[in-house]
């Protein structure tokens, strides 16, 4: 990924976050069926729990993917530099059989 693409991706991932923050209301309650409940503490608990649960699988899967990518990079670096693999597709070991990619997109 080039630096420009990276910056672009950062901008685009920041946009939804900004939208979420903008959408957070103060104390407006338009909900006709909202019950009294146990007060703000429970609601905040739900909110925190939701954020935690939403983020956790992404973090876990992301960490594993990054780890595998790093391993692939290391393996590529270790492997003979004569292989025809292009550096940005680390893919895997079996492809070190050195097949050219005639029709790359």
């Amino acid at each position, binding site marked *: 990924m080039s630096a420009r693409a990276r910056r672009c991706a950062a901008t685009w991932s920041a946009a939804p976050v900004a939208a979420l923050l903008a959408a957070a209301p103060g104390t407006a309650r338009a909900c006709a069926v909202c019950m009294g409940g146990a007060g703000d503490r429970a609601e905040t608990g739900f909110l925190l*729990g939701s954020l935690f649960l939403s983020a*956790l699988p992404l973090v876990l899967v992301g960490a594993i993917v990054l780890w595998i990518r790093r391993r692939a990079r290391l393996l590529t670096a270790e492997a003979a530099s004569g292989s025809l693999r292009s550096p940005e597709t680390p893919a895997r070991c079996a492809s070190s059989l050195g097949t050219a990619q005639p029709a790359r997109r």
Partner: protein
Amino acid sequence: MGATTTLHALPRPPQSGGAQLVPSAVMAMLIFVVTEIMLFAGFVSAFTIMRRSALVWPPPGQPRLPVMETAANTALLLASGVTLVIAHRAFRRHAPDARTPLLATLLLGSAFVVLQGREWVQLLAAGLTMTSSTLGSFFYLVVGLHALHAVVALGLVASAWSRLRRGFLARSFFGVTEVFWYFVVGIWPLLYWRLYL
């Protein structure tokens, strides 16, 4: 299916051009551990929500969880994780050297399970049961689930140790054992923090 499926389970080695990026068994265990972490995350967030929405916490008339004794148990479990790291290093260097640290992991882990069991007996005697309060329900459910995982993981560690003693511990089996035990060790401080503190 076609008539050519007569030969059953041909023993053909899994196809791969070279070394696998991550051994299949370790990868499978990693995926399984992700699912397990999500399972515990479900319990922990449920407990957090329930605790926050309670008007009085901890529930009145219920015994307090033994924070200090469990802290000592936690230290035992963390120490078993450390000995497994030592075993990992030794295994890389010279496999038979991993025997002692692996045995230490087994013993420390077993001590943790036994001491937690003793804690359960005491708490049950003091009146904290599965149905006495939400604290009790969650405590026995989550800690019991963790204990179940610890026992299974101990079985793996014991099996790895005995394989190593007989001299045929495969690297992938050791890897699977390690991933699962690190999971058991790593999730516990989180449970301790949420449940006891």
